[in-house]
């Protein structure tokens, strides 16, 4: 009997030390029945990509509150692509100004979630991506 459960990596790249948001998301996704691999603070792009590779997750979620998203995101994407993870979707949440959304999407980010996003919205978004991936 096949049992598929959505697996999500929640990581915090860069140097900001505020992980409450990441933990709230991790908890909400767990309560939605997902398996959340939580990697902790201050991860380098290579550490995140390596964890994504080893854990074979469906989605990588980055929490960035430092304002460095336009610098960090392409580096994580690059590190993931270098590991043959081009198809693995990436989401970004945190303090992300609306005007940066198009740039992030261009960098290969599937979903951007700024301040005020509800956990339900993120959950539904991930469930949709995973469902599409599984059917495709």
């Amino acid at each position, binding site marked *: *009997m*096949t*049992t*598929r*459960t959505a697996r999500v990596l929640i990581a915090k790249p860069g140097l900001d030390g505020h992980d409450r948001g990441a933990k709230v998301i*991790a*908890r909400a*996704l*767990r*309560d*939605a*029945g*997902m*398996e*959340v*691999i*939580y*990697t*902790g603070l201050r*991860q*380098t792009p*290579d*550490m995140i990509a*390596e*964890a994504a*590779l*080893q*854990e*074979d997750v469906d989605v990588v979620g980055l929490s960035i509150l430092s304002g460095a998203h336009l610098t960090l995101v392409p580096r994580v994407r690059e590190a993931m692509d270098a*590991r*043959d*993870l081009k198809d693995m979707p990436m989401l970004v949440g945190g303090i992300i100004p609306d005007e940066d959304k198009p740039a992030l999407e261009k960098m290969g980010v599937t979903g951007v979630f700024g301040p005020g996003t509800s956990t339900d919205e993120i959950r539904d978004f991930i469930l949709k991506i995973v469902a599409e991936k599984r059917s495709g």
Partner: protein
Amino acid sequence: MTDWAKSLLEGSRRALSRILTFIENNEASAPALMAALYPHTGKAWVVGITGAPGTGKSSLVNVLIKAYRAQGRTVGVIAVDPSSPFSGGAILGDRVRMEEHSGDPGVFIRSMAARGNLGGLSRATRDAIRVFDAAGFDMILVETVGAGQNEVDIVRAAQTIIVVEAPGMGDDVQAIKAGILEIADILVVNKADRPGAAQTVRGLKAMLELGHPSSKESLISHHGRLTEVPVLPATNTHEAIWLPPVIQTASLEQKGIAELITQIEAHRTFLTDNGKTAAIQDRAIELELYERLQASLLQRMIRATPPAQVLDLVRRVRQREIDPQSAVETLLTQNDGQP
């Protein structure tokens, strides 16, 4: 041979990761993959690490990885965390303690959620161990929270079992003595830099002495199975019986780690040199075959049984028309379970 299996044997980490997912999800491709990989297994040494939450298992695994890497050995890690009984979800956080090995190609860490399906975790863990083995890892560390039978079944797939305790949990010796303690090949008192470590060590040693083989006749319990040991001449007694050592460690200071590594090697040598490995393997394989048979028969029965019939029986049991065992007999006689 399937493409994924071929890539794995060629050293692809992506293939290793994908195959672990197929195994864990029990996908249709899994049996063929395992059949292809099985001939390439049997070279790694598997160490199970279990103990109560918060005893420092992940940190201990982290320093063990470091020590094995310093010896030039490659390490695969399977870290099992519980699933929520309510949502089925899980937060897998063991990697946090092991992040320093992130860039090392000789280390591969995989988190697994217990998921709680009927005997499925034990199967998935055994298969995952073999996937790491086929990928060529020298040491495979399986870490799991020691709470119940499920976890005992997981670590039983290991060749050397380490049970981790911490000071201040001394009163729990009573609670664990009937379960997890007797499967230990090595007992570790971690966080030994904290007060109370000596008492914990004394408590564990006292427990072990209670089970110490007498001169007349002895029973050893290896991996949870009681096996009668023939009465041996006094001179041979020490060679034939493994008495679990109690080691104090402090992961953060790397204290006691060299001794732990030495004892793991000693246990490996003990099993290999005394010709016990074949007998132990046979018992483990027998157990595994029965476990898989049980799961397969159950699946076959479930497939062959119309859900409506089950619902009808459920209603009749609830209304006291029929007892549960008779309901099962009805299912067994009416559905022969042929695919």
